[in-house]
């Protein structure tokens, strides 16, 4: 893989770079169609079950119950997303299970109006059936926005708040060779990630391309590249 190939990879990357007021850039990982679809499904099932359960309980109590069920059902159905998004840091139950968070496109919390927009426009994203418009719009958008997101100026990102640092095995790590920039380091890491999918011959072939740098051949080269990747991962 050459540097040019890596640029191509970046073009379809889900990483979004944002500026903060301290001047440092932060990276957000935008969530894609599948994972957001599952979150949406969970939320819709919850909404549906709550409204149904309430109707089943209230309607047999008579005409007042029917009235209450309609009013409450209406409010639950239309405010479910808004209340969770605004009062729970952009995290609905579905998004919580999938580890997602809805935020403004500048990484700030969603306010009432933007949440109302993206939630109300779900009815458009749903058309003609099964959120088809939303899926197509997301696929066409680099920041994976459905129509409601575009109008509200919001995105859905991965909500990672767990510290996963230093979980890697330090014993098998090698020091990082001098002069590797961040892109080069990423190549090492992607090699390590893909190692289990590669045939042993192909892994050796790839690792041996670094012979001028590492001076190793065969299986030894694979082990060395893997160890350097480990070093990059945990810092040596």
């Amino acid at each position, binding site marked *: 893989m050459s540097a040019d190939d890596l640029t191509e990879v970046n073009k379809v990357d889900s990483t979004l770079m944002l500026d903060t007021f301290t001047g440092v850039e932060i990276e957000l990982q935008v969530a894609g169609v599948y994972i957001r679809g599952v979150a949406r499904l969970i939320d819709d099932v919850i909404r549906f079950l709550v409204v149904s359960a309430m109707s089943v309980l209230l309607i047999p109590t008579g005409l007042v119950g029917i009235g209450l069920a309609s009013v409450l059902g209406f409010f639950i159905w*239309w405010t479910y997303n808004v209340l969770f998004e605004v009062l729970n840091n952009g995290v609905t139950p579905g998004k919580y299970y999938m580890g997602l968070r809805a935020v403004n496109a500048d990484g700030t919390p969603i306010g009432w109006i933007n949440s109302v927009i993206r939630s109300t426009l779900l009815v458009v994203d749903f058309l003609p059936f099964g959120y088809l418009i939303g899926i197509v719009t997301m696929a066409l958008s680099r920041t994976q926005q459905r129509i409601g997101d575009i109008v*509200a100026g919001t995105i859905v990102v991965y909500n990672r708040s767990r510290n996963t640092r230093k979980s890697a095995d330090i014993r098998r790590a090698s020091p990082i060779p001098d002069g590797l920039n961040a892109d080069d*380091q990423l190549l090492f890491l992607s090699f390590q990630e893909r190692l289990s999918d590669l045939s042993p011959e192909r892994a050796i072939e790839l690792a041996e391309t670094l012979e001028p740098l590492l001076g190793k051949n065969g299986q030894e080269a694979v082990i060395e590249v893997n160890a350097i990747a480990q070093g990059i991962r945990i810092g040596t």
Partner: protein
Amino acid sequence: MKQSAFESIHEGLWNDFEGQLVKFEALAMRRSVENEDREQFIDNFELISKHLAFAKTRGYSLELVDHLNQLVTRGHFVLHKSQANPLDNIFEFFVTGFAREVRRARYFVLVAAISFLLPAIVIGAMIQYSPHYITSVLSSGQIQQFERMYSSTEARIGRERSGASDIAMFGFYVYNNTQIGLRAFASGVLFCLPSILVLGFNGLFISAIINHLSVIGLGNTIFSFVIGHSAFELTAIVLSGAAGIMLGYALIHPGALPRREAVRRIGASAAKIALGAALMFILAAFIEAFWSSLRFVSPEIKYLVGACFWVLTFSYFLFAGRNADRETTSRT
């Protein structure tokens, strides 16, 4: 500096900051955070932003960069949580904000009103000229149903059977009408057409039913029934449609902006109008269920009250927050 030295110096700060993050994320509003806590938090945020920049430029491990990136991202989010009390905003919105938003969108409201009124006037004139035109809009079954609803001698007007209680009808009106309004707004993003169609069809059906009933001699019943809630309900339909047309228009004619930016900029105004309209629908549902349907109130009183509602609605949208409008224009 070696990464391990860097980490051992700052690890404590990072852990403290993470603890603060968890605390602040749990708060619904930033105002509940003590001031000295906030200052401490901002100081830490600025320090850790620097650490992230160092970690990137010094080529520290991706895991460390990732961890610091998470801390800064979460800090950035928490620091921008709204400090305002939403109740203040809501109050302000209903006193003046809603009316000002509608006035600012007056051309869209005009287009929506025409989309609603034109089919209404045409079908109304046709039915008054020759009553059989009603069959081009409604089936004979529907016509009979409406005739039954308004000719019966039940204690409530506008209901087919006596069984339907006021609160059940209120529930139905809220659920049905408000939903139509919200859909008319949202679907407008598909290049205006769905909003215009919703407006046109509503104008057509409402006018057809009212004109038909008045032609067959139920005019007094139907007019005294609809006059009460019509001020809020008809205005709300037109405003919902107008909000939808705003979204679609921004896509059709984005001007100098990219389409997504144009629609985003108009989105907040349109949503505020649609929200205000949704509340008008609920108000109308309340009046329709508990006031308009009362048969023992004489039609004269209903006309009087209904006329007051219309005057109130128009005065609100024409005059509420006028002074604030003037201040904004003189400033720009």
